[in-house]
């Protein structure tokens, strides 16, 4: 009976193996955006479009006619962004954003902005809830 499975098992195992190899090789392409640190240290200025992600630094947002000037940071490095395009509703200082455009070596020229919100779900009612983490530690 085992022998009859071989004709299914062999292709199945090969397919899974191929998938794993693909995923490992595609890892670099699976990075949705670059950080300001990567932008400043690894990425050469060019006309190629790329995505830059980081938090909007408080006090850096300036509306300048049709464009928006802002600085995004990953906590280590910061990059200046000139954004010409739609500003999402949740845009705010301290918010995570992903801008898409080109990097000229000193400024990132963006025409598309996405919000990258965090994984925290907090109530806005100013009640301090005992964190679940804390409760687990106590038990």
């Amino acid at each position, binding site marked *: 009976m085992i022998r009859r499975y071989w004709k299914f098992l062999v292709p199945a195992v090969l397919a899974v193996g191929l998938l794993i190899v693909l995923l490992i090789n595609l890892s670099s392409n699976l990075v949705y955006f670059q950080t300001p640190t990567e932008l400043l240290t690894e990425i050469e200025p060019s006309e190629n479009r790329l995505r830059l992600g980081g938090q909007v630094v408080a006090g850096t947002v300036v509306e300048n006619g049709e464009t928006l000037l802002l600085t995004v940071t990953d906590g280590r490095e910061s990059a200046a962004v000139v954004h010409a395009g739609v500003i999402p509703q949740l845009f705010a200082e301290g918010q995570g954003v992903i801008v898409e455009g080109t990097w000229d070596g000193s400024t990132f020229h963006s025409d598309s902005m996405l919000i990258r919100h965090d994984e925290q*779900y907090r109530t806005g009612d100013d009640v301090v*809830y005992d964190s679940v983490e804390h409760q687990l530690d106590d038990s």
Partner: protein
Amino acid sequence: MSDATRTRIGALDIVATVSVVFALVFAIASPRIESQGEAARLLFVHVPTIWLAYLAFAVTFVASILYLATRRLRWDHVAGASAEIGVVFTTVAIIGGMVWGKATWNVYWTWDARLTLTAIMLFVYIGYLALRRVIAEPEARARRSAVLGIVGLVQLIPVHFSVTWWRTLHQTNTFRPRDIQMDGPILAALLVSVAAFTVVYAALLRHRVRLEGLELAAYAAAAAPVGPVAGDAVSAPNIGNSGAQP
């Protein structure tokens, strides 16, 4: 339609309906999610639907193994029915996620790792359902789809951990071991919703498995001649031997 084939609404269906209404009340009554606003209430649909997809595909996996181990077609029916429900809820999770994505990210769809892998998972299971429709013979169908039902589950690992392994637009997992990034009242409403959707899954699975049993009975009835075949009463003419007749 005979009495045996009629779908009856059972206690489970009533419990499922009531618990969904209950979950909706909790979702509306839950405190506002501070960082995102009202659109984030889609959380109470998005998370339970993708949970159901995971659960459904896991049940398909287990039932496929049990089919191969026992050769009882009942397990094949569970596997097929569960995958069907999983496909429906993966679709709902993606559509709900798109609406939520437009409201918060400012985009319906983008090819980040989480979204892409979830779409691939959906298409693999649509392929599984297609496979089940290609093969008519119940035993062969059960055996071949069981293989895909087992292998298919592997995808759930990269789908779930994509947000941790790669940089994505989708936020990382809120539920981490010993560390849940969610306040109590929101978590309570979410758990009610997850429980309610799970009851809906159980109710749908029960009906769908029963239908698979009826389909099998119909297949068996069509394959096996039950009564006298038309033309049976006519005997073949006795050509070339007429002279020998008394």
